[in-house]
Every structure is written in C-alpha cells, then in structure tokens.
C-alpha cells in the first residue's frame, strides 16, 4: 500500500508539473484551471511522502493537505465557470498574477486560521476531509455538466476534444472522492469487518479512481498542450 501511495505521488507529481507548466504559457482562464489541478498534487504528495518522511504526519500538515484539496476544486471550478462565461459572452478579464496571488493568499489565510486554532485531532481531520471530499464530489458533477455545455459551445474549435478529456478526468475524480466520502461518512474503515465487501469496493474504487485521475490529468494537459500549439 505504501508503494501504491508512493506511485500515486509520482504520477501526481508529473500531472501537477505538467498542469503548472501549462498554466504559465497560456491564456488567463487556463491559469485557474491548471493551478487547481496543480494543487491536487500538494494534497496528494503528503500521503505519498509519508512513508518516506514520517515527520509529515503532523496534524497541521495533514489538515492543510485537505484544505488545499478543497481550494484546488474550488479554483478549477471557478476556472471552468469563467471559461463557460467566455464561450457564451466572449468576455474574459483578469490577470494571471492575480490568480497566483489569490490562490497563495487563500492558502496562507487558511494556514493562519488553522494555526490560531487548537491542533486538529482525528475528528477534526475527519471533518475537514469530509468537507473536502463533499466539495469534490458535487463540484465534479457540476463540472462534468459545465464542461459538456462548454464542449457544445466550442465544438468546432481546435481545443474542443480537450474538454472531452476533462470530462473523463472528472469522472475519475468523482469515483475517487466519492468513494472516499462514502467511507468517511459511514466510517466504513472502522466497521470494515462488518461490511467487508462494501469497504473493499469503496477502497479499490477510491484508489483506482485516484490512479486513473492522476494519469488522465497529466495526459489531458499534455493533449491540451498539443492542441494549443
């Protein structure tokens, strides 16, 4: 399992690197989307690095990992909404710098908020994780529909197929985070002996969803980079 986590960490490292690189060289709207996917890397690198860096098992670090995960889905959803508005109104505005600074600012504010409060225990971490996964589950569904609408608006453009790839990404993410949410809400990890099949299915859905999401994110951004050449 540790190896699997490490492998996942490597894939997310690649995916995060590709998406961050993509955010630098393209239009401002793509910055939000790409930065959002990059932040997944931060959230995933921690559990991936844990076997090698046990010091990372600090409650603040773990809590920040989940908070950054939440920020990640909010930022990329915001990006897709902006893109949808562009396809309908042809209007777009803002600067890349504000996106980077805004994200950094929110992360810092979250860290400060965490630090001024008591050290998160298991219950607090679980709650933060549930909030993260709930955001991911519902926003993934919303994003799939939003991307579908975007696709129909830009069907004959060079970039249209890239959005089909994003739909696959969010389908994998939905599977991944939905399974995790299910496990957390029903505390299946504590009652896995009572409901072993449910737990096993959810566990493998979570991990496979995570795995395919990491591959599909990296592949999607590489594909987009090719389309936008």
């Amino acid at each position: 399992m540790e190896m699997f986590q490490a492998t996942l960490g490597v894939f997310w490292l690649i995916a995060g690197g590709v998406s961050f690189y993509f955010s630098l060289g393209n239009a401002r709207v793509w910055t939000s989307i790409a930065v959002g996917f990059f932040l997944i890397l931060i959230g995933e690198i921690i559990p991936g690095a844990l076997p090698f860096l046990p010091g990372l098992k600090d409650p603040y670090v773990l809590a920040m990992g989940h908070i950054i995960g939440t920020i990640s889905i909010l930022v990329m959803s915001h990006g897709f909404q902006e893109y949808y508005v562009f396809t309908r109104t042809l209007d777009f505005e803002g600067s890349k710098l504000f996106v980077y600074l805004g994200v950094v600012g929110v992360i810092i504010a979250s860290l400060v908020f965490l630090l001024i409060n008591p050290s998160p225990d298991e219950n607090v971490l679980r709650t933060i994780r549930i909030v993260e996964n709930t955001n991911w589950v519902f926003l993934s569904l919303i994003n799939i529909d939003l991307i579908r609408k975007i696709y129909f608006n830009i069907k004959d453009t060079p970039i249209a197929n890239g959005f089909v790839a994003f739909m696959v990404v969010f389908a994998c993410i939905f599977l991944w985070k939905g399974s995790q949410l299910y496990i957390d809400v029903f505390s299946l990890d504590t009652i896995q002996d009572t409901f072993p099949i449910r737990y096993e299915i959810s566990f493998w859905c979570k991990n496979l969803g995570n795995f395919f999401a990491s591959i599909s994110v990296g592949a999607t951004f590489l594909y987009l980079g090719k389309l936008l050449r």
Partner: protein
Amino acid sequence: MILLPRGNPVKENINPGKVNLVDALGKLRQGKFTGYLRFDFPDGTGIFIYQQGRLISALYQNEREHLIAYDGIARTFRESLAGAGNLNIYRLSTELAYSIHTLLHGEVLHKGQDLQLIDIRSLLTRMREEQRSGCLRIYSKEHIALIFYREGNPLGFFHDGSTDIETTADVSLSVAREPGAKVDVLVTSGDGEKTLADLMETGNVTGMWEACMHERRSHREAQESAASKTLEMRESERRQKSLALFQQLAQTHLGKIGVSLVDKEFERMKLNGGQLNEADLTTFYANLTKAAKLVAGPSKIDKMLDEMKKGFKTFTK
C-alpha cells in the same frame, strides 16, 4: 465652329470660368468698347458683339444648336462656368462690328467650297448681278478673310489683325491662294446699319449670370454629394467585404466561436462609417489574438491572422 477673323486683340486666352463675366461686360459697356468677344468651348462657340459699349448681338452655336440673344448669353455663361472655355476679345470698328453681326445671323448659301474647284470671279459677278448683301468667307487652316458685299457692291475686306473694313485685297486674297482654302457664301437681309438694342439694357444679364452661378453651384454640390455618397458606399462595401473575409477565415481556423469573436471585435472598432485602415485593424488583430488563445494555439492563430492581413490588402488596392 464659327469662322471669324481675329480683329485687333485686346485680351486673349482668358479662362472665362475664372472671370466675373457680368463685371467684365459692364466694364466693356462703360468703356464704350466696339468689337467682339469670342468664347471657344469644347462643344460650341459663343460670340458677343459690342458696338460703342452696347451689346448688340449674342450667339451660341454648335453642331446641334444655334442660340441667339438671351438664350445665347445664358448658354455662353453656363458653358463658361463649366471651366473648359477660352475667351478672346478683339477690337473692331463700329461698321465692322455691325457687319459681323449681320454675317452671323445671315444665311449660308454655299459652305466649304474648295477654291480650286470654284470660279471665284463668276461668283463675285453673281453677287453683283443679284445685288446680294452678305459676305464671302475665305479660309484656310491658318487664316480667315471676309469680303463684304452690300446690294451687290463690294464693301471691303476683313482679315486677321484688322480693326476696320479694308479696301485693299492683298491679304484677303492671299488667303485664297493658300493650299486647301475654302469659301463660304453668306447672305444677309440687312440693309444698312440699324440701331440695335442693347441686350444688357433690355434684359437682366446680371440675373442670368447669377442664375447660372447658382445652377453651377448646385450642380457642383450635387456632384460632391454624389461623390461622397459614392465614396461612402464604396467604403461601406469594403467594410462588409473585409468583415465577411474575416468571418470566413475565423470559421475555418477557430470554428463558430471564431466568427462570434470577429463580429465582437469588429463592432468594437466603432468605425461609425469612417474608413477602415491598417491602424484600426492593428487593435482588432491584437484583441482577436487575445481571445482566440482560449480556443486555439499560436500557430493556428498566426496563420489565421496572416491570411486576414493578406486578404485585407487586396481590398485596399
């Protein structure tokens, strides 16, 4: 063309379109001028004859028309204001001025008869026997001479440079000896000098001039308005063609959203009917590029812009 010898030149080669003709005619009147004004136009000739400051005759003639008096004056004014005329003023004696008047309003008996083929002496004898009044106009490519007759009796000669009817035939008959010389025989019914009315006194020449000026001004304004409308229409057509070209190229490279982007950026230029030029399009291309980056890569966008620029150049040729 009205064939008349040149008298004693007072002024030659004036553009009558640049002169206030009413003022000029008034000055000739005040100066008790005797002679004639010859207006040469591409389409016809105008002749005004003065006798002691009185405008006794006006004539405008071309292949189709023969206008006299006020019609002649008005037409001459109109042609002068068109700007393509040439005015020459020649001084004559009183008698010659009247003779020219009767000549111009007389009847042409024979026209353009080649002197090599005609028996001039028998012609002159006939004039005498029939007691004709009128003149023989002898002309070559370079010179013109008139021989006046009254009731069959020769009065005298008028040729280039003279101011009065002359009695020596040398110069006039030398014209007859020039190669290609021809003769017209004109007869008149005039029997002695009459006091002719002063057209400037009996008619409102000033009013005619102002009416012609007004007509010319209106005509010019209408032409300018038509020209600017034509220019506006042409510019509008050019804008439409440019927009259509840009839309087509955007559709090819960016799809339907490209057409919408072109429409939006074209609208943003706010040309308001003004001319579309390269400077306006620089901003258009920049804005289009910025928006197009969301749906296509730089190479595709650059290719689209190149084709747009090339296409637009063909409309500016």
